[in-house]
């Protein structure tokens, strides 16, 4: 009885051991959701376009240079904010569309450090949520005096409260999907 049982056990064990030894290589995962790049596109009164992109440190290549936004004092700019997933260089995804689709759950805030910029929200219908709040993907900037400083752009997911009393935007609750700092130089 015992020997039979033992043999059965060993056989079972050996079968399982061998049947499980497949050597399939794991599939690569190119993250679908991750935002790797944040782009600000500026169009001035003369209809000239400037583009600045911040790339996540994990996805930078050798040629990457920290973006420095160069603006002129006393000027007005149409500014568009975009988010991209470039984790798979063969398949660049524009995440901005998803943000627009889920505009009720998203909110963008801007904060300037050491430089003064007048900002107004200028979202089209696809950027205005059910409560009538422009979520901040399109803005108009009016620069004032010259100076150097920073801009912090945040994309917030599922805030409990969005407040645009100050057009820079403030919120409570939610979690941060994007928080990047750009250098700004307002000069002549």
């Amino acid at each position, binding site marked *: 009885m015992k020997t039979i049982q033992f043999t059965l056990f060993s056989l079972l064990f050996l079968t399982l051991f061998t049947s499980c030894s497949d050597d399939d290589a794991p599939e690569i995962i190119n993250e679908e959701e991750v935002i790797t790049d944040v782009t600000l596109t500026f169009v001035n009164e003369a209809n000239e376009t400037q583009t600045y992109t911040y790339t996540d440190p994990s*996805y930078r290549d050798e040629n990457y240079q920290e973006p420095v936004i160069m603006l002129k004092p006393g000027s007005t700019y149409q500014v568009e904010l975009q988010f991209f997933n470039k984790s798979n260089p063969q398949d660049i995804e524009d995440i901005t569309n998803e943000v627009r689709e889920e505009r009720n759950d998203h909110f963008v805030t801007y904060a300037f450090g050491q430089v003064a910029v007048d900002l107004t929200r200028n979202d089209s219908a696809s950027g205005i949520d059910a409560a009538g709040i422009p979520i901040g993907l399109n803005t108009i900037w009016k620069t004032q005096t010259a100076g150097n400083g920073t801009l912090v752009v945040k994309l917030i*997911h599922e805030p409990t409260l969005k407040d645009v009393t100050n057009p820079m935007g403030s919120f409570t609750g939610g979690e941060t999907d994007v*928080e990047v700092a750009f250098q700004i130089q307002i000069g002549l």
Partner: protein
Amino acid sequence: MKLFVQLLLFSVSYFAYSQSCSFILEGKVIDFHDGQALANAKVELLNTNQIIYTNAKGEFKFKEVCEGAQNLRVNHPDCQELIYPILIERNTKTTIYLEHHLEELEVVSLVGKINRDQTKSNPSVVVDRAVLDKHRGGSLGDALQEIAGVSSLTTGNSIVKPVIQGLHSSRVLLMQNNVRLENQDWGVEHAPSIAMQAAQEVEVVKGASALALGGDALGGAIITSPAKIPVKDTLYGYTGLVAASNGRGGGLHTQLTRSFEKGWYAQADASFKRFGDAKAPDNFLANTGHLEKALTLRGGLNKFVQGFEVYYSYYQSENGILRDAHIGNVSDLIRAINREKPIRSRDFSYKINEPKQSVTHHLAKLSYYRRLENIGKIKMHYAYQENNRLEYDIRRGDDAGKASLDLNLKTHEFQTNLQIDYDTNYDLNAGMVLTYQDNFANPLTGVKRLIPDYKQYKVGGYITGNYKWDEYWTTEAGLRFDYTHLDAQKFYLKTSWDKKGYQQDFSNIIIEDFGTQYLTNPKFDFQNFSWIGGLKYEQNDFEATLNYTRGQRAPNVAELFSDGLHHSAAIIELGDLRFKPETSHKISLNLAQDLNAFSFVANPYLNRFTDFITLVPKGLETTVRGAFPVWEYEQVDALLWGIDAQANYRIAKNFESQVSFAYLVGRDLDADNYLNEMPAPNFLYQLTYKRENWKDLRMSVQAKHSLRQHNYPNNNFYYEVLNEGNYEEVLVDISTPPEAYILLGFESSARFTPFKTGSLEVNFQVQNILNTQYNDYLNRLRYYAYQPGRNFILNLTYNY
């Protein structure tokens, strides 16, 4: 009370006597389970006036026994009365085996009983049935917390991880019906896949001294096993119902057992539990509901000489994670720490939304044992386990509702153990374990794998033994060797690969270049040696044990491979491929005195580690999502020392008081600093009124007093926040432990017999009577919300 006899005629001596009433009947009364002789058993030869008590060796002898069919009646305090028929034709020698009371563990006592099954020199603590019953609506971790020296590391209120003398996760081994539970135990927010409602016998060993279970349980082992099934023709079962006000939930549990006199048995056990949002004193904790389903089926043959069992258990749980705890980065953490709690108040709901986790565990086991005459017992089993862990985050777009983590862990285990115990003075145990494990991380999540695909092979062998020198002294020694081979396939982002400096050391393991990522094939071989030596002295009501254990644990997959963001903690965790096994040297002394009205247990210990793997803060890292603190796993020298103590005093006939205490200090010797997340000193006071002769009535008041942890590492940091156009340095206080707290509780239970058969146990309790607002240092979500408030719990169990 059930009992059972197995008869073995070892030798029969034959002498012809002319007189029919002068035969000699001698024998021995033995505990069926451990083969120990039962002293002081009352043996009565029926229809005569002959009564004899067995001696210290369990022996008895009747000198004038008549020829023909005779009956012996055997009584022992631990066992139920047994009528033992025997045919006398000559001088006869017999061995009588007595079965323990089935309700052995149901005996209501407040102290966890000390047991010596696992090791002689490092006693384990058996959790009382009353304590288990009390926590049927909670989790295993909640029940274990009542043992001095065991605390809980929690993620919210339903994910509760046991901590033994400061150690947890991969350092605490969980055994379910003799099988090592393989359930992704490396994660701090991974609770054991064990249904509390169905837990029947639970035992805790502090330290790695139970070598037969594993040499790597540097914290200790938690052993859960199903109740013993009596060998008699019977059908019995019970159904339990638990309802709790906090979380407005409850559970149902039922068990049915059928057994036969020939040893065959079958048992089915099913439980279900559902809770909605828990409530802190002032508000509901949004998304903290949980759901649990469990099923166990087992059947087999249980004979004295041999037996087998087929066992299957299924466990499924779903746990909501506090919605407020889902944060993005350091800025969110600052807002969370500084804001009024909670931010997201909502009405009560049973719905479990993201973030949540869902765990399914299957365990199938086939086991066989045989007693070998004049040697001992051989046991073997094969077990297959499958653990599927799904974690859901709050996601965007098409990915919403899709799991962010989907791990499938399959484990095959074969174990065999030979116990040599024919001589009452020594006991030898030798065995081996073979394990094969396959982890698959589903790529369909679309999220970088936290844990890679891997295959792991383990071979372990051990030998332990103890020798009883005389009636006072016993010595113990043991040795275990484990070999682990780990073969993983892991993707690394090139940036993090370079940052860890792997290009120099591991460039040979790269198998493919995918542009931004490398596919690598890390392989490891770990050899672990563990050994123990121990001494026990016992005299009447006093016992002292001294134990030295050297244990060794191979680094787990999280410690080796972590390289990314840990969402719930908002930290970046980095593992290291260069790790070697960590080693613990633990000395533990256990003193126990049990006088009539007073008893105490004290257990001071010292645990010295080399290459202790711990997370160390390494500054901030900026990503597109903002800044995150970086924590790297490092190997350091560490020292943990402390004392667990408990005392009981019977104040009056029906009044008992109890106090237990645990104190622990953990030091990182390399950094000359305290270790993170060590349990705060705590007291548990209890006053109980018992009236066994009136419905088994029991009432008790309890106070849990947790002091403030003063011995903690200060990992606070400053972060620059842009405020009104200017940057400000803001202190991020992640380290300061919460204030001390005292929780009052009340518990009462009684047993009624309202129906013709069976009995009804009623248990009513109130937790956190004063609705105290508090936070616990070992709650990972303490920054976001307070602990649950007052809770009324009613527990009904009908035994039939």
